[in-house]
Protein backbone atom coordinates (compact mmCIF):
# COMPACT_ATOMS: atom_id res chain seq x y z
CA UNK A 1 0.00 0.00 0.00
CA UNK A 2 1.96 2.98 -1.21
CA UNK A 3 1.26 6.63 -0.51
CA UNK A 4 0.05 7.10 -4.07
CA UNK A 5 -2.73 4.55 -3.54
CA UNK A 6 -3.87 6.25 -0.33
CA UNK A 7 -3.83 9.67 -1.98
CA UNK A 8 -5.74 8.33 -4.99
CA UNK A 9 -8.33 6.67 -2.76
CA UNK A 10 -8.97 9.80 -0.68
CA UNK A 11 -9.04 12.13 -3.69
CA UNK A 12 -11.39 9.97 -5.74
CA UNK A 13 -13.63 9.57 -2.69
CA UNK A 14 -13.82 13.38 -2.35
CA UNK A 15 -14.39 13.77 -6.10
CA UNK A 16 -17.27 11.32 -6.33
CA UNK A 17 -18.64 12.36 -2.93
CA UNK A 18 -18.78 16.01 -3.97
CA UNK A 19 -20.55 15.08 -7.22
CA UNK A 20 -23.13 12.87 -5.47
CA UNK A 21 -23.77 15.51 -2.81
CA UNK A 22 -24.22 18.07 -5.58
CA UNK A 23 -26.97 15.96 -7.11
CA UNK A 24 -28.71 15.32 -3.77
CA UNK A 25 -28.62 18.80 -2.16
CA UNK A 26 -31.82 20.84 -2.41
CA UNK A 27 -30.38 24.35 -2.09
CA UNK A 28 -28.67 25.57 -5.27
CA UNK A 29 -25.91 27.52 -3.45
CA UNK A 30 -24.90 24.38 -1.54
CA UNK A 31 -24.75 22.54 -4.88
CA UNK A 32 -22.18 24.99 -6.26
CA UNK A 33 -20.01 24.81 -3.14
CA UNK A 34 -20.06 21.02 -3.28
CA UNK A 35 -19.10 21.12 -6.97
CA UNK A 36 -16.18 23.46 -6.20
CA UNK A 37 -14.99 20.79 -3.74
CA UNK A 38 -15.14 18.21 -6.55
CA UNK A 39 -13.11 20.50 -8.84
CA UNK A 40 -10.38 20.89 -6.19
CA UNK A 41 -10.17 17.11 -5.68
CA UNK A 42 -9.85 16.59 -9.44
CA UNK A 43 -6.87 18.99 -9.36
CA UNK A 44 -5.32 16.61 -6.80
CA UNK A 45 -5.90 13.68 -9.19
CA UNK A 46 -4.07 15.62 -11.94
CA UNK A 47 -1.08 16.08 -9.62
CA UNK A 48 -1.02 12.29 -9.13
CA UNK A 49 -0.96 11.93 -12.94
CA UNK A 50 2.10 14.24 -13.16
CA UNK A 51 0.10 16.98 -14.88
CA UNK A 52 0.92 19.85 -12.56
CA UNK A 53 0.14 22.67 -14.96
CA UNK A 54 -3.28 21.21 -15.75
CA UNK A 55 -3.87 20.87 -12.00
CA UNK A 56 -3.13 24.55 -11.41
CA UNK A 57 -5.31 25.46 -14.40
CA UNK A 58 -8.10 23.38 -12.90
CA UNK A 59 -7.87 25.32 -9.63
CA UNK A 60 -7.66 28.74 -11.32
CA UNK A 61 -10.30 28.27 -14.02
CA UNK A 62 -12.75 25.74 -12.57
CA UNK A 63 -12.59 26.22 -8.81
CA UNK A 64 -12.03 29.96 -9.28
CA UNK A 65 -13.69 31.33 -12.37
CA UNK A 66 -16.37 28.78 -13.29
CA UNK A 67 -17.62 28.37 -9.70
CA UNK A 68 -17.86 32.18 -9.32
CA UNK A 69 -19.68 32.38 -12.66
CA UNK A 70 -22.18 29.75 -11.53
CA UNK A 71 -22.77 31.62 -8.26
CA UNK A 72 -23.51 34.74 -10.32
CA UNK A 73 -25.88 32.73 -12.49
CA UNK A 74 -27.71 31.66 -9.34
CA UNK A 75 -27.69 35.05 -7.65
CA UNK A 76 -29.06 36.78 -10.77
CA UNK A 77 -31.99 34.38 -11.18
CA UNK A 78 -34.62 33.28 -8.65
CA UNK A 79 -33.16 30.71 -6.27
CA UNK A 80 -35.06 31.22 -3.05
CA UNK A 81 -37.40 28.28 -3.50
CA UNK A 82 -36.18 24.74 -3.03
CA UNK A 83 -34.88 23.00 -6.10
CA UNK A 84 -37.57 20.71 -7.46
CA UNK A 85 -36.77 17.71 -9.56
CA UNK A 86 -38.42 16.18 -12.57
CA UNK A 87 -41.37 13.81 -12.15
CA UNK A 88 -40.90 10.32 -10.79
CA UNK A 89 -41.42 8.58 -14.15
CA UNK A 90 -38.82 10.79 -15.85
CA UNK A 91 -36.40 10.13 -12.99
CA UNK A 92 -36.77 6.36 -13.27
CA UNK A 93 -36.27 6.39 -17.05
CA UNK A 94 -33.21 8.63 -16.70
CA UNK A 95 -31.78 6.38 -13.99
CA UNK A 96 -32.24 3.24 -16.08
CA UNK A 97 -30.63 4.88 -19.12
CA UNK A 98 -27.65 6.14 -17.09
CA UNK A 99 -27.27 2.78 -15.34
CA UNK A 100 -27.27 0.98 -18.69
CA UNK A 101 -24.62 3.35 -20.02
CA UNK A 102 -22.55 2.91 -16.86
CA UNK A 103 -22.67 -0.90 -17.01
CA UNK A 104 -21.75 -1.02 -20.72
CA UNK A 105 -18.79 1.35 -20.26
CA UNK A 106 -17.75 -0.46 -17.07
CA UNK A 107 -17.56 -3.85 -18.77
CA UNK A 108 -15.74 -2.36 -21.75
CA UNK A 109 -13.12 -0.83 -19.42
CA UNK A 110 -12.75 -4.07 -17.47
CA UNK A 111 -12.64 -6.23 -20.59
CA UNK A 112 -9.93 -4.30 -22.42
CA UNK A 113 -6.32 -5.23 -21.84
CA UNK A 114 -4.50 -1.98 -21.21
CA UNK A 115 -0.81 -1.53 -21.78
CA UNK A 116 0.58 -1.58 -18.23
CA UNK A 117 3.62 0.59 -18.98
CA UNK A 118 3.81 4.00 -17.35
CA UNK A 119 5.30 7.03 -19.05
CA UNK A 120 7.34 9.42 -16.95
CA UNK A 121 7.88 12.89 -18.31
CA UNK A 122 11.54 13.79 -18.17
CA UNK A 123 11.19 17.49 -18.82
CA UNK A 124 9.60 20.24 -16.73
CA UNK A 125 5.84 20.00 -17.28
CA UNK A 126 5.12 23.69 -17.98
CA UNK A 127 8.07 24.11 -20.36
CA UNK A 128 6.97 21.06 -22.29
CA UNK A 129 3.38 22.33 -22.60
CA UNK A 130 4.62 25.74 -23.73
CA UNK A 131 6.91 24.26 -26.35
CA UNK A 132 4.24 21.94 -27.74
CA UNK A 133 1.44 24.52 -27.86
CA UNK A 134 3.55 27.12 -29.66
CA UNK A 135 5.01 24.73 -32.23
CA UNK A 136 2.43 21.99 -32.92
CA UNK A 137 -0.87 23.56 -31.87
CA UNK A 138 -0.53 27.12 -33.19
CA UNK A 139 -3.85 27.23 -35.05
CA UNK A 140 -5.95 25.84 -32.17
CA UNK A 141 -4.26 28.38 -29.92
CA UNK A 142 -5.16 31.29 -32.19
CA UNK A 143 -8.69 29.93 -32.57
CA UNK A 144 -8.97 30.00 -28.78
CA UNK A 145 -8.38 33.74 -28.82
CA UNK A 146 -11.09 34.18 -31.47
CA UNK A 147 -13.44 32.02 -29.39
CA UNK A 148 -12.77 34.04 -26.25
CA UNK A 149 -13.38 37.28 -28.15
CA UNK A 150 -16.67 35.99 -29.54
CA UNK A 151 -17.73 34.72 -26.12
CA UNK A 152 -16.91 38.07 -24.52
CA UNK A 153 -18.80 40.12 -27.12
CA UNK A 154 -21.77 37.74 -27.19
CA UNK A 155 -22.12 37.57 -23.42
CA UNK A 156 -21.90 41.37 -23.13
CA UNK A 157 -24.63 41.80 -25.76
CA UNK A 158 -26.87 39.25 -24.02
CA UNK A 159 -26.34 40.65 -20.53
CA UNK A 160 -26.25 44.37 -21.35
CA UNK A 161 -29.77 44.62 -22.79
CA UNK A 162 -31.47 44.67 -19.42
CA UNK A 163 -29.87 47.94 -18.35
CA UNK A 164 -31.38 49.70 -21.37
CA UNK A 165 -34.76 48.16 -20.61
CA UNK A 166 -34.76 49.16 -16.98
CA UNK A 167 -33.81 52.76 -17.64
Amino acid sequence: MSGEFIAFFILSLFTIGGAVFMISFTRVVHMVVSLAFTFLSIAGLYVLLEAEFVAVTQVIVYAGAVAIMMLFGIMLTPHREQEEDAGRAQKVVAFIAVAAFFLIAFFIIQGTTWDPSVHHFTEDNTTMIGKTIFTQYVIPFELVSVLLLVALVGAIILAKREENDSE
Partner: protein
Amino acid sequence: MPLYTNNYVLVTIFLFLGILLPVAALTFGRFLRPNNLYPEKQTTYESGVEPTGESWIQFNVKYYIYALLFVIFDVETIFLYPWAVAYDKLGLFALIEMLIFIVLLIIGLIYAWKKKVLEWK
Protein backbone atom coordinates in the same frame (compact mmCIF):
# COMPACT_ATOMS: atom_id res chain seq x y z
CA MET B 1 11.60 10.03 -9.94
CA PRO B 2 10.28 8.91 -6.51
CA LEU B 3 12.17 11.71 -4.75
CA TYR B 4 10.38 14.32 -6.81
CA THR B 5 6.91 12.99 -6.03
CA ASN B 6 7.77 12.97 -2.35
CA ASN B 7 7.76 16.77 -2.44
CA TYR B 8 3.98 16.49 -2.37
CA VAL B 9 4.16 14.90 1.08
CA LEU B 10 5.21 18.35 2.30
CA VAL B 11 2.28 19.92 0.44
CA THR B 12 -0.09 17.45 2.12
CA ILE B 13 1.36 18.21 5.55
CA PHE B 14 0.89 21.94 4.97
CA LEU B 15 -2.67 21.34 3.78
CA PHE B 16 -3.53 19.41 6.94
CA LEU B 17 -1.85 22.00 9.17
CA GLY B 18 -3.75 24.75 7.37
CA ILE B 19 -7.05 22.99 8.03
CA LEU B 20 -6.10 22.04 11.59
CA LEU B 21 -5.04 25.51 12.75
CA PRO B 22 -8.38 27.37 12.40
CA VAL B 23 -10.31 24.32 13.67
CA ALA B 24 -8.09 24.08 16.76
CA ALA B 25 -8.18 27.84 17.37
CA LEU B 26 -11.97 27.98 17.19
CA THR B 27 -12.36 24.87 19.37
CA PHE B 28 -10.05 26.26 22.08
CA GLY B 29 -11.89 29.58 21.83
CA ARG B 30 -15.19 27.86 22.50
CA PHE B 31 -13.87 26.42 25.77
CA LEU B 32 -12.05 29.54 26.93
CA ARG B 33 -14.55 32.31 26.17
CA PRO B 34 -17.38 33.32 28.52
CA ASN B 35 -20.72 32.08 27.24
CA ASN B 36 -23.61 34.50 27.63
CA LEU B 37 -25.52 35.01 24.37
CA TYR B 38 -28.26 37.53 23.73
CA PRO B 39 -30.02 38.28 20.41
CA GLU B 40 -28.01 41.44 19.57
CA LYS B 41 -24.79 39.46 19.80
CA GLN B 42 -25.98 36.85 17.31
CA THR B 43 -26.83 39.25 14.47
CA THR B 44 -24.51 39.52 11.48
CA TYR B 45 -21.88 42.24 11.76
CA GLU B 46 -22.23 44.75 8.89
CA SER B 47 -19.81 47.52 9.84
CA GLY B 48 -22.06 48.63 12.68
CA VAL B 49 -25.18 49.03 10.51
CA GLU B 50 -28.32 47.11 11.40
CA PRO B 51 -28.53 44.19 8.91
CA THR B 52 -31.70 44.13 6.82
CA GLY B 53 -33.11 41.27 4.74
CA GLU B 54 -31.13 38.16 3.95
CA SER B 55 -27.94 37.63 1.98
CA TRP B 56 -29.39 35.39 -0.75
CA ILE B 57 -31.01 38.21 -2.71
CA GLN B 58 -30.92 38.81 -6.46
CA PHE B 59 -27.89 40.81 -7.55
CA ASN B 60 -27.66 43.45 -10.25
CA VAL B 61 -26.61 42.30 -13.73
CA LYS B 62 -23.75 44.83 -13.70
CA TYR B 63 -21.77 42.57 -11.38
CA TYR B 64 -22.00 39.79 -13.95
CA ILE B 65 -20.05 41.78 -16.57
CA TYR B 66 -17.12 42.09 -14.16
CA ALA B 67 -17.20 38.35 -13.49
CA LEU B 68 -17.28 37.77 -17.25
CA LEU B 69 -14.22 39.96 -17.88
CA PHE B 70 -12.45 38.22 -15.02
CA VAL B 71 -13.10 34.77 -16.52
CA ILE B 72 -11.95 35.75 -20.02
CA PHE B 73 -8.67 37.29 -18.85
CA ASP B 74 -8.18 34.47 -16.36
CA VAL B 75 -8.15 32.05 -19.28
CA GLU B 76 -5.73 34.32 -21.14
CA THR B 77 -3.29 34.00 -18.23
CA ILE B 78 -3.40 30.22 -18.57
CA PHE B 79 -1.87 30.52 -22.05
CA LEU B 80 0.51 33.37 -21.19
CA TYR B 81 2.19 31.38 -18.44
CA PRO B 82 3.62 28.40 -20.43
CA TRP B 83 4.63 30.84 -23.18
CA ALA B 84 6.62 32.89 -20.67
CA VAL B 85 8.25 29.79 -19.15
CA ALA B 86 9.28 28.34 -22.53
CA TYR B 87 10.05 31.72 -24.10
CA ASP B 88 13.83 31.33 -24.53
CA LYS B 89 13.31 28.04 -26.41
CA LEU B 90 10.65 29.39 -28.77
CA GLY B 91 11.91 32.58 -30.38
CA LEU B 92 10.30 35.23 -32.57
CA PHE B 93 7.46 33.19 -34.10
CA ALA B 94 5.94 32.48 -30.70
CA LEU B 95 6.20 36.16 -29.81
CA ILE B 96 4.17 37.09 -32.91
CA GLU B 97 1.60 34.37 -32.11
CA MET B 98 1.21 35.70 -28.60
CA LEU B 99 0.92 39.28 -29.89
CA ILE B 100 -1.97 38.25 -32.17
CA PHE B 101 -3.59 36.49 -29.21
CA ILE B 102 -3.29 39.52 -26.94
CA VAL B 103 -4.43 41.99 -29.62
CA LEU B 104 -7.60 39.95 -30.24
CA LEU B 105 -8.42 40.00 -26.52
CA ILE B 106 -7.63 43.73 -26.29
CA ILE B 107 -10.21 44.24 -29.08
CA GLY B 108 -12.70 42.55 -26.75
CA LEU B 109 -11.68 44.86 -23.90
CA ILE B 110 -12.06 47.94 -26.14
CA TYR B 111 -15.50 46.68 -27.19
CA ALA B 112 -16.51 46.38 -23.54
CA TRP B 113 -15.13 49.88 -22.94
CA LYS B 114 -17.06 51.38 -25.86
CA LYS B 115 -20.24 49.66 -24.70
CA LYS B 116 -19.74 51.48 -21.38
CA VAL B 117 -20.02 48.28 -19.32
CA LEU B 118 -16.94 49.27 -17.32
CA GLU B 119 -18.61 52.44 -16.04
CA TRP B 120 -20.34 52.48 -12.68
CA LYS B 121 -23.21 54.91 -12.63
